[in-house]
């Protein structure tokens, strides 16, 4: 019995040690995300500076800043947040070149500017956004987030021009298939978007 307790304790300690600071940090940050995005973003940034070769923490810190910027009306705060997110994306991009996940994030960052002031940014940023999605699709045709974000973007543009959006519903359907088969490289690699794709696809059939 004592042997077993001993073994168990040693194993627990071992596993505690095996779970690195990186994993603990990332897990904590993901847990914080929902209720306290600022703390989560801060923690991702801290991990990013402690793990200078890993693009993921910068990616998530940028993502939080971009998501926070949608529906923000304060131009000073928006500019500060999006500039910060841009810096994080640029940093991540130097660690992982031609990364389709970072391209999707870059397109979303531009979309946040567009959502803030379409009259000012629409005509200059829309071609950029399209170009990014096109390039991402060439690099990673099987990435579900590339497929779904591009489809959503195309759909919004088509709606704007009063054109048929049904071709993009097919893209969404395809994205759902890709999601079903998608396996992130590690538990911390990007793996979001499936729910949103499903709800967009649902509204398609209505």
């Amino acid at each position, binding site marked *: 019995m004592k042997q077993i307790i001993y073994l168990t304790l040693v194993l627990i300690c071992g596993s505690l040690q095996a779970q690195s600071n990186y994993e603990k940090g990332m897990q904590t940050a993901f847990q914080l995300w929902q209720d306290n995005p600022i703390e989560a973003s801060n923690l991702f940034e801290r991990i990013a500076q402690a793990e200078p070769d890993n693009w993921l923490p910068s990616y998530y810190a940028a993502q939080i800043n971009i998501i926070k910027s949608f529906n923000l009306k304060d131009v000073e705060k928006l500019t500060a947040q999006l500039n910060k997110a841009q810096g994080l994306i640029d940093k991540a991009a130097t660690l992982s070149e031609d990364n389709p996940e970072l391209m999707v994030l870059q397109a979303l960052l531009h979309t946040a500017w567009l959502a803030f002031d379409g009259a000012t940014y629409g005509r200059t940023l829309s071609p950029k956004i399209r170009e990014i999605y096109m390039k991402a699709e060439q690099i990673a045709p099987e990435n579900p987030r590339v497929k779904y974000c591009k489809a959503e973007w195309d759909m919004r543009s088509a709606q704007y021009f009063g*054109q048929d959006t049904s071709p993009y519903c097919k893209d969404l359907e395809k994205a759902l298939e890709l999601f079903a088969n998608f396996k992130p490289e590690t538990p911390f690699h990007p793996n979001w978007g499936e729910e949103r794709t499903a709800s967009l696809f649902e509204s398609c059939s209505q």
Partner: protein
Amino acid sequence: MKRILTIIFVLIPMLFVAQTKIEGMVTTAKGNPIEGANIYLQGTYDGTTSDEDGHFSFLTSEQGTLTLILSYLSFETYKMTEDVHNMNHLQISLKEDINALDAVVLSAGTFKAGDNSKINALKPLDVVTTASALGDFVGALQTLPGTSTVAEDGRLFVRGGNANETQIFIDGIRVFTPYTPTTNNAPTRGRYSPFLFDGITFSTGGYSAEYGQALSGVLLLNTIDEPDQNKTDIGIMSLGATLGNTQKWDSGSLSMNMSYINLAPYNAIFPNRNNFIDPFEALSGELVFRKKTNNGLFKLYSAYSNTGFELTQEDINNPQGAYFKLKNNNGYVNTSYCGVLKHAWSIQGGLGYTRDTNSLILDDNHIDGIENSFHGKLNLKKRFSKRLILHSGIEYFNSQFTETFSNEEIDRARYGYRNNIAAVFSEMDIFISKKLAYKIGLRTEYSELLHDFNLAPRLSVAYKTSKKSQLSLAYGDFYQMPSSQVLKYHQDLQPQDAKHYILNYQFNADGKIFRAEAFYKTYDNLVKYDTDFPGFDSQYSSLGNAYARGIDLFWRDNRSLQNVDYWISYSYLDTQRNDSNYPQRTQPGYANKHNLSLVGKYWIEDWRSQLGMSYTFSSGRPYTNPNRSGFLNDRTKPYNSLSINWAYLISQQKILYASVNNVLGFRNVNGYQYANSPDTNGTFNRRALLPAADQFFFIGFFWTLSTDNKSNQLDNL
């Protein structure tokens, strides 16, 4: 028991390693707590986020000397290196980031158009969506305060200065012949296509020491660094056609743009006061090549144009009309490089070369001119910190101008000049705080032709009066060579000098901009001559002088009314000048006291259309009436023009664009031409100088073919 002890010894170090508590407070400079700041030990996982009282505390198992970092949006990151045991009861105040959006900007006298520059009076698109501008970048700037409406000329007249006093730069390199040639009484246009530029800065005074040889204003155009995508643009217009193509690859891109303009069909439909023998015809092409290097960007911009026309114009002294024939060839090449060096240094440099040949026949006078001009510049910038930036450079201009003149009596008289100017400049931006900033600069120039060495100090100060407003003061000394019209005959002159004093107030909030600027300008060493036009027989001196003072107001609002963006500019100008052939100080013929512009754009979502209007009013300009005594003794009636345009997106790739200038058909008079001799009653008869046509109509269809079939040329319109 032993085992249990072992376990305890294994566990304790793991769970209770000797930990140090790091704690303190983080506040703004004013002592307000900062919530949400990120605080951590550099290179470790240990850190936290400050709470609503600005308080932070965390444990670390690190030992020894480490760097603690505090960062927060819109504040400068704070670093302290210390033994971790001493990192308690910390009281840290963060400095506001002077690069934040609400920080002070050194902007007196300047209008900027760019996506993300801090205060944008103009947007890049405005150049081509302003109703009266017809795609001319110069035309759009004429709706800004500080410019005078000189409808028959079309160039930029800034704050009482003549058109030669404003210089244009592409990627920092001077453009020597920016305007297309034109006949008398017909406005010129900017030579270059606005579609290739994405940044425009227009300064009507007090500009940086980097720019010289401009007494009144500078217009800085930047070519696009990286185009968005591969595409082909086709345009079919009532005046001609354009064709553009862009190819991009990983490290660079190439854009080409061709345009052919022929006014013959237009003139056949709409009556024109000129009698064209050979209609206005222009073929032009532009090419931009961009290549990214490891640490910088190389750009080559080149443009070529060939323009020609032949006509007779009504002339009161010549019943057959005045004959005018012109052929012009113009080539421009501009290469520039900007890059980052080590230790916060950056470099920017470029070379520009212009060759312009002009062949003109005026009645029986043949005038052939050749201009070769070169400009080279090298700039170095050092960021000592975010708060101290040094900017220094050297510059070299070389121009050669030769003209030959022949008529029945004179056979190929040849004259001209060659001039070299070398300049050195240095400027420092000092940000005392987020509220107060200085720019101090000095420029020195040496002109070989005039054997003259001059020193031009520049200074500006900006102070943030509230979160959304600021006050700026600027002073500058500016020198410029006399114009080539004079230098080709006579060179024993001094550089012309202007001094600017500017007081600027700016308010900027939520899509609204208000700007008020008062200025005072004095001129010295202006060129005078004693004949109607400069010539060989004229007597020249550098004894001319002038002053200009006034107020410029600007208001733009794109938020208050849905889908409406509008701006209003008003300028008041009081100027008196004694130069060229003026017998005394008087208001020059190109200056008007009041200028008002109103520009509006309305986006109709359901029609996928943008409707635009632009209204200009300017008070009368002086002209000389020989039936009364005096010089520039009469005023023309005020100028009025209302222009409208409509851009319709047929689909994502096709746009239809139409515009009408002076839709209400105001009959504007640019001035009068008087007979050389009086009639039998002793009065000098006159003829009104009217524009070639009161109204102008334009229709164009633009089609973009891109790899994804979604892009369009709305950016271009």
